[in-house]
């Protein structure tokens, strides 16, 4: 048994978490599985789950709010969390991520933030150039939910009116984004530290323009070239991630990064490529714990 302990925190225990736990077992690394649903925090307790400061928390919560809250809370208690609160917070906010990526020299689609209808219309005009569609999406969310294509001022106006009436204030912060013409597919790259370890093409289902595998798209393995590796690693580093799922599209001007997922799902990448992504993530955690 190793002296390192890894705390795997989760709420929904998916195949991704199962694969990670299998790799921990295979390496005889001590670990604790912590369902965030079962936690009770007390201001009078100064430690957490008998954890020592050398232990690493792997944050696998599927909920944005919880991954932010608990990663920050564990850090407050002196634990190292992967990914860190800062990374999770930036990663969960699509607009902040895009700004961070752009400032790090990573090509991203031109994007505009608007919180009211008139500014949204102004942004639409700036992006649409009178012809192409514009993407409208909230600053947070995943798996292609609430992501829409808008073709006209009147369509935009109607959509924005609906969004601004939504109960969740995050849904009322709108990103207007240039539509990047892509060859019916995008690329999910899993980056661990300085390496793009595996990648898949995600083909859009015939009934949808979005390529998220959660929407039923087909996947196939990608042979990672130097440029793809470089851009993906730079994107992951820009948000300070130890590991990430970087979504990339092939535009006519080269690779463009759409987003960086900081609590990424990787089971499809593993299944399609046969590369042991979970093992790479666990090895990275062990290296971090030994530092």
């Amino acid at each position, binding site marked *: 048994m190793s002296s390192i302990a890894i705390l795997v925190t989760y*709420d929904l*225990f998916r195949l991704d978490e199962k694969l990670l736990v299998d790799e921990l077992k295979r390496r005889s690394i001590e670990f604790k599985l912590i369902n965030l649903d079962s936690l009770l925090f007390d201001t009078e307790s100064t430690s957490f789950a008998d954890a020592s400061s050398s232990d690493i928390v792997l944050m696998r919560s599927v909920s944005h709010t919880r991954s932010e809250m608990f990663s920050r809370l564990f850090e407050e208690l002196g634990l190292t969390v992967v990914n860190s609160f800062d990374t999770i917070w930036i990663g*969960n906010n699509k607009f902040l991520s895009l700004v961070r990526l752009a400032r790090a020299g990573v090509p991203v689609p031109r994007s505009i933030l608007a919180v009211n209808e008139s500014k949204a219309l102004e942004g639409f005009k700036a992006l649409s150039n009178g012809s192409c569609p514009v993407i409208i999406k909230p600053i947070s969310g995943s798996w292609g939910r609430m992501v829409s294509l808008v073709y006209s001022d009147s369509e935009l106006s109607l959509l924005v009116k609906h969004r601004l009436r939504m109960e969740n204030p995050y849904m009322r912060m709108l990103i207007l984004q240039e539509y990047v013409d892509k060859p019916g597919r995008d690329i999910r790259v899993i980056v661990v530290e300085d390496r793009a370890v595996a990648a898949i093409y995600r083909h859009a289902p015939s009934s949808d323009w979005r390529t998220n595998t959660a929407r039923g798209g087909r996947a196939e393995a990608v042979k990672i070239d130097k440029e793809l590796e470089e851009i993906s690693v730079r994107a992951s580093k820009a948000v300070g991630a130890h590991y990430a799922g970087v979504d990339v599209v092939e535009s006519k001007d080269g690779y463009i990064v759409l987003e960086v997922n900081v609590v990424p799902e990787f089971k499809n990448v593993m299944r399609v490529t046969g590369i042991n992504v979970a093992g790479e993530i666990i090895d990275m955690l062990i290296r971090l714990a030994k530092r």
Partner: protein
Amino acid sequence: MPKKVTCEICGTEFDIPDDVVDGELVSCPTCGQKYQVVLNSGLVQLKKIEVEAEDWGE
């Protein structure tokens, strides 16, 4: 002994294995409805997953 549960959408009975983890994602083998397993003092309960109502993502 695996525990038998019933899908509240289509009524299919399916097994939850003994080594199930609290919070585990399971799907009905017939209609595909997803559930989260809730373990409460050895009792297996299913919580229907409605992703649209959650702040879930990657």
